[in-house]
């Protein structure tokens, strides 16, 4: 299981949890599993063309992932970053 850190604007989907766990050997699989556990969260990050939305950045072990095929190791934390607008 991979530790997934949830950006503040996405926590409505995780009942407020800032860190959750999900399974997957690739980022695509991990996000699919995340969506099974927290329905709707994937669409907030990935568009219909399977691209990461421009206000979302995903980091695997603190390195940016731009490809959903990127492998994810169980021990590498995934951070989901979302743009914030408040000031």
């Amino acid at each position, binding site marked *: 299981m991979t530790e997934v*850190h949830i*950006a*503040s*604007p996405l*926590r409505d989907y995780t009942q407020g949890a*800032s*860190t959750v766990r999900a399974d997957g050997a690739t980022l695509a699989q991990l996000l699919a599993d995340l969506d099974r556990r927290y329905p709707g969260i994937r669409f907030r990050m990935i568009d219909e063309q399977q691209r990461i939305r*421009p*206000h979302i*950045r995903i*980091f695997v072990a*603190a*390195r*940016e992932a731009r490809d959903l095929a990127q492998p994810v190791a169980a021990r590498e934390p995934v*951070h989901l*970053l*979302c*743009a*914030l*607008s*408040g*000031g």
Partner: protein
Amino acid sequence: MVARPASVDSPAALSADERQRYARHLSLAEIGESGQARLRAARVLVVGAGGLGCPAALYLAAAGVGTIGLVDFDRVEESNLQRQVLFTSEDVGELKAERACARLAALNPQVRAIAHPIELCAANVREIFAPYDLIVDGSDRIGTRYLVNDACVLFGKPLVSAAIHRFEGQAMSYVPGRGPCYRCLFPQIAEGTLPSCAQAGVLGVLPGVLGSLQATEAIKLLLDIGTPLLGRVLVYDGLSMRFDEFRIARRPECAVCGDQPSIHAPQDPPGFCTIEEQRRVPRILPAELAAALARAPTGLRLIDVREPDEFARAHLPGAINVPLPGIEQQGFSLSDEGLASGEDAPRGERAAHRLVFICRSGARSLRACALVRRTAGREVLQLEGGLLAWREAVDPTLAL
């Protein structure tokens, strides 16, 4: 290193008063007397005198940054006081930029505080930015964030930016030619995609943390000390009390700082309307609207421009939901009235309705009114003070 004016590179000696005031800085090898003189000669513009801008400006003034500009067209509201620490209860209703500058001058009379009580836009951003060495972005609208970023890239200004949401904040710095800009991090965001603090809430002390980080970064960049937040985004989570840092790279395809940029001049965000346009919007008070609805309910069409989840929680009877971002992006048409309400009245009859725009506190409905007046030429009214005022004056049971 920030390009500094000649006066910064050959500063005059500090006075006895300055040596006393900044004694703790003078003890720091990284600052000392020459660094303090550089701060005195520096000119920093803070965009937004809100949650972030207030603490950032306070610390910059206390640190002795010689000239601090503050851009904000807004007025102080009661709900600002929970986090906007430059203001007191007595300031409610006053222009933020002016009150903030008065407070900075009281804190440190050696600082020149300049109020810019106007809305930053593509037409004025070059002129406003020109006299300043560095920009601190504490704006609360994504469109302004891009305007500020693009202007900094195009005009070669260093930028320290931050943003907040509930218990989380992000910060990064940009120096021309030395790393990614804000658009490299988030290339494009449509207005309304992200909830504002008014919608989502924010811990009052959160912008204090992020604004203080911005002031720290600004001072470091002005003095060319330490390691700035270039090519890194810092994420702070107040609930779990952790800081995370992520490396980000400049995007060669970035629309403004990339290899073949498509943005060559600052742009206003979609749906931009001036404060003057908003000032000209006719208003209606809650009690007046209640009386008008009782007299002739069919003569008015209530348009609630809040987000669907806010609308679902509570709304006025008969109101239809047309969220502001949709009006900003696509405009407002007669079909919005008919489709959203399921009404099948003839078009001419619907067009005779006077549109009353409603939101939570009045800010979003004011923008909607200004846009609809300009683009659709419709007679509009804005519910002054929004549903908060309605709850106060008409219906205390309204569960917002």
